[in-house]
């Protein structure tokens, strides 16, 4: 197992800007009638602004729980989560946009209205809302699809709308909880490239949770590997592959080595 020294050595001065994520000694304990279940055990990590970080780990390792804490959707038992250098205790769409596994679009609203939804909640005037939604839809490659309802869109298109919704308020951080898990292999590959294009265009900090090792290495600057319950970060890999990433890299030696290294951790804890 890799020592975690590099994970816990923070340089706060450089990591408190817009888009910085810092997680200090976060634990999550579920109390049941018979025993206490430790879901996350003293997890610390930092993400510098503009990085693409992927969390991987076996099912039930708490990677989604950790992401939900960064989104302010779940409260940790102990520890602190800082976004832009200040604690996050409840959802704050100005700092964090979230994309879920199921696109979670409101089926009674059009694509455009779904993207506008966060702005509607805070009473942004209609014209401004529409303009921002148009920009966001254009960014994700759905120009001209705004008037369609979710059931008129394919799975990949729904996730594009969901990403547009996450970006519409222009938060510095985008959190993604297995966003492509429900898509077929081909759509998934396309969406990965699309996401990297959007990320390069916007410079957001992205934290991306996935089960797929290939997806993890293909997308990430850095992969954080978690162990099964109690969830801990057991390894931290830098991905030295150049950008833009291409399909050829999947069969390269670097890719294989990194992928194997993650797999060994996961097999050990499964």
């Amino acid at each position, binding site marked *: 197992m890799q020592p975690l020294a590099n994970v816990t050595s923070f340089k706060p001065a450089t990591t408190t800007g817009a888009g910085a994520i810092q997680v200090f000694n976060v634990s999550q304990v579920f109390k049941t009638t018979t025993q206490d279940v430790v879901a996350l055990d003293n997890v610390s990590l930092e993400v510098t602004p503009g990085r693409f970080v992927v969390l991987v780990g076996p099912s039930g390792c708490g990677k989604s729980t950790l992401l939900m804490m960064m*989104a*302010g*959707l779940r409260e940790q038992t102990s520890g602190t989560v800082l976004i832009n250098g200040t604690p996050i205790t409840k*959802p*704050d*769409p100005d700092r*964090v946009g*979230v994309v*879920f596994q*199921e696109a*979670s679009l*409101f*089926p*009674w609203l059009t694509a455009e209205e779904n993207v506008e*939804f*966060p702005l*509607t*909640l*805070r009473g942004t005037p209609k014209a401004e809302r529409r303009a921002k939604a148009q920009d966001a839809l254009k960014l994700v490659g759905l120009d*001209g*699809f705004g008037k*369609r*309802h*979710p*059931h*008129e*869109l*394919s799975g990949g*298109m729904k996730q594009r709308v969901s990403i547009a*919704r996450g970006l519409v308020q222009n938060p510095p951080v985008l959190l993604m909880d297995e966003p492509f898990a429900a898509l077929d292999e081909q759509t998934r590959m396309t969406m990965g490239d699309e996401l990297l294009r959007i990320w390069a265009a916007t410079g957001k900090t992205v934290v991306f949770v996935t089960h797929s090792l290939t997806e993890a290495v293909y997308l990430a600057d850095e992969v954080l590997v978690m162990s099964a319950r109690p969830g801990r970060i057991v390894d931290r890999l830098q991905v030295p592959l150049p950008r833009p990433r291409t399909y050829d890299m999947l069969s390269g030696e670097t890719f294989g080595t990194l992928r194997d290294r993650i797999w060994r951790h996961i097999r050990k804890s499964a």
Partner: protein
Amino acid sequence: MSAHTLRRLIILSLIVLWELVPRLGLIPELFLPSLSSTLAAGWNDAGEYGHALMVTLYEVSISMVLACGGGILCGAVVGSLPKLRTLMMPIVSSLYAIPLVILYPVFNVWFGIGSESKIAFASIYGFLPTMLGTAAGIQTIDPQLLVAARSMGATLTQRLIYVILPAAIPTVLTGLRIGGALVIVGVVVSEMLISSAGIGYLISRYRTILDSPHVFAGVLLVLVLTIAYSALVRWVERKAAIWQTGTRAGQNAADDARTGAIASAA
């Protein structure tokens, strides 16, 4: 021949048969009066039928509000509170199995033979299935939608207005459809049993004096009432439920969208 045309043809031939069969003497007019004599009977006593229709409509509307309004409200509350649900659902479900018409004589004693007893009976008759349907439907609201709304900063009130209410509309409409149809049945049946006014009362009274054309005129009126109601609900459903993906139109649109996407990507 399309199903649509075929359906029209069947209805048309039924109407023609209704006129011809009694006229040719294949069925005695006492059992089935011809369509024209039924319409004539209704037309000649239009005032009487009109008054009866008003009474019945009055009872139906009040019962509808009580049964559907109460059923949807109670169903929403019971459906969204797990503890209350476990407590109440077995009771409500077993009540539903009782033939409620046995309560009607009791309501006559309590409320008299006027509209009140009909309203009481029809309201309870329509209430139970509406409530059961709504309670079941509320549970099908995707909790992920509420989490998504929360991640975008929605307050509790905003989640109720922007997520729970719109998500509940299909369920509420189903409740209206079931509850409303049962309310009409409840009102007409109770009018036929013991009463002094309404369409059910007319049907029952003309039956005792073996005046078949007038009986059938009443039956026809109930039929029109039911068809009008279900047409109304269907119209509201079409207006409100564009997101129901089971429809052919929605499927076609989805296919078009995908073709469009491929075309624009190429």
